[in-house]
């Protein structure tokens, strides 16, 4: 028995060191893709843990069903070593998983928060219950119109209460409020339309506070930006 505890302890110690080391890699420019990749890793991780625990639980429930009315349980007494092993080994396994997740989560976070230098700035102002986008040439719009193939940073504050800027298709979100300037950035890869929603409760018309994000080709965007509106 002891030898097995040692083996498991060694494996978890190695995992603790190696797993965060494996998380090293090249940062991705497009944090949306990065989000989707990490999400699939985490789903696998969650599913593995869930399956192990659920399978053991079901096995116990079936195997140790009471057979006669006066039957008592027969669980073994844990020695001091065994009870500590049942604490330390799981803690090391969970810790290894936590470090793996933290390292990868941190990398994605850096991608999400470091705005590329060539990003186009759009100023946003939130108020109950609409959004206004203002471009560098002074043009304003009720929908967020952006050119394809270049990163966009949306930055601004709120005129009244806390609102939330959310771009579900690009896996990004940030609250917007009076007294602070907050931002989010994203990378529109293809021409198309997406939804921009408010994700912080702001009263009566909270769920009507949405608009389109229109991704246009570079030429269409330039001609749109040139027109008054």
């Amino acid at each position, binding site marked *: 028995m002891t030898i097995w505890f040692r083996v498991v302890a060694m494996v978890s110690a190695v995992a603790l060191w190696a797993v965060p080391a494996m998380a090293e890699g090249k940062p991705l420019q497009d944090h949306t893709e990065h*989000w989707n990749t*990490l*999400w699939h890793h*985490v789903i696998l991780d*969650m599913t593995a*843990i*869930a399956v192990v*625990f*659920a399978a*053991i*639980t079901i096995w*116990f429930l079936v195997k*140790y*069903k*009471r057979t006669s009315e006066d*039957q008592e*349980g*027969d*669980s073994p*007494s*844990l020695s001091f070593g065994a*009870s*500590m092993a*049942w*604490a330390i080994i*799981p*803690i090391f396994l*969970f810790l290894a998983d*936590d470090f793996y*997740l*933290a390292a*990868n*989560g*941190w990398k*994605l*976070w850096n*991608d*999400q928060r470091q705005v590329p230098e060539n990003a186009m700035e759009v100023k946003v102002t939130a108020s109950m219950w609409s959004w206004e986008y203002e471009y560098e040439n002074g043009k304003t719009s009720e929908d967020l119109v952006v050119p394809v193939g270049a990163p966009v940073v949306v930055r601004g504050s709120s005129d*009244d*209460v*806390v609102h*939330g800027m*959310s771009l579900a298709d690009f896996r990004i*979100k*940030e*609250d917007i*409020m009076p*007294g*602070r300037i907050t931002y989010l950035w994203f990378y529109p890869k293809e021409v198309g339309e997406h*939804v921009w*929603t*408010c*994700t*912080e*409760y702001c*009263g*009566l018309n*909270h769920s*009507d506070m*949405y608009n389109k994000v229109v991704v246009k080709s570079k030429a269409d965007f330039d001609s749109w930006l040139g027109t008054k509106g």
Partner: protein
Amino acid sequence: MKEWIFTTDHKRIGILYLVGSIAAFAVAGIMALLIRVELSSLGPTLVEDASQYNVWLYFHGAAMILAFLIPGLTGFVANYCIPLMIGAHDVAFPRINAFSVWLFWFAIVLALLTFVIPDPPDVLWTGYPPYSVQTDGNTAFYVFTVHLLGFSSILGAVNFLCTVIYMRAPGMGWNQLNVFVWTTLGAFVIQLVMIPVLASAVTLLLFDKYLGTTFFNPENGGDVLLYQNLFWFYSHPAVYVILLPAVGIILEVLATFARNPVFNYKVTVYGGIWGTVLLGSDVWAHHLYTSGMVDWLRIGMMVTTLLISLPVGLLTISLVGTLYKGSISFKTPMVYATSTLFLILLGGLTGIPLAMTSLTVHLAETYFVMAHFHYIMGITATFAVFAGVYYWFPLMTGKMYNETYSQIGFWLNFIGVNLTFWPLFGIGIDGMPRRYFDYQMYPEFESTQMLSTVGAFIVAAGMAITILTWIHGAILGEKAKPNPWGSKSMEWTHCEYPPGPGNFPTPPEVTAEWSPYNYGKHTAQSL
């Protein structure tokens, strides 16, 4: 009637907590049904605009957490069971205990006035400024309800900490306590330390709205994020105020119905329970991952939040391990308790991506978060309360509930909650924001919303049957046999059925070998 109103007996006070919290649960549950019906189809369904709907949202959240789960677990179960489990004749301060329960009842009445006053609060249970300061809704009702419930909880915390520290039966050491007693101690330590922070946060809200101060108004040097930090500094640990006693009840039920001691008792208590208490107060900012707070703080809180998996993992191992080589019987309390083993997995593991700042940047404020906390906090804790009510039912009433109808109620509840919340994970990942009255931007989610509404009605049927089995059992049930489950815990072995004033015919004393889990060959030394 008089003997209930003026009672200082902890068992009656416990039952007063139960009745009050189940009443709050029923009303808040009806709000949930109204919300679900409203969302079942695109566009306005029940009401024309969101003004009424937002009041339902407020009441559902505030009442379920503050008036059902916390008082149900730390009011009802703790009051009824702790003195019986530790061999005390009552709590340390019985009249203060009576004061707490009546504060709680006044708070419920105040909360129910929401449906009578002209401008009901519409600030959700979180009450974020500046909205809660600017709204025409009556934020003061929210603030005073929180004050009353908070005051009631603080008095309860002092009372029970004193009771457990000073009033254990002669000979009862710390390692001979029921796990439920330990979880409640942990919960009350959190309540005592953290509630004043919540109370101060909502009080500042009151000053801002009605006295013209500017704590949360940036135009005059205030800060809107200050409130969010203060609020979650209590309200995240409040999750553990709910989760810990829930796990305590589940462990008691698992131990009794598997006729096994709690697996790895000392590690469960000192690692699992107290680890959760310690770490649980260092993670609040994961509610602010998308708030606009400084970037580096969000990373620090990601690490502490992930570390919560260590004590909670130990608790989960303890839950499953208690079944090992047991003698398991599937009476109603046990089916509720075993179902929570799966619900905790679902609710707990979906918390992992939400601990990670960068994944939460998409998942925050969507149905994914909503489904996650309904699984771990709403459903798991509610099922634990139900397991507890069924488990101690013969003790409380001296009578037996109807097993068949209780099992039918369970299966309706279990199938219903999964049908309601499982599909919501999916549309949450696809971007469905929570707290929405309508979802014109996502018409493709309509069928999922409808499915969820159907699930909610199955739950409603299950809940109705469940509560009827209690009322029926308490009035018309068969007389229960003493200690029907064969538990070794003191509330079953040393009391009359139901226990009278003073609890024990003769004050109990225990030996060094005694423990509440002396099944088979086990003694206190082998825990």
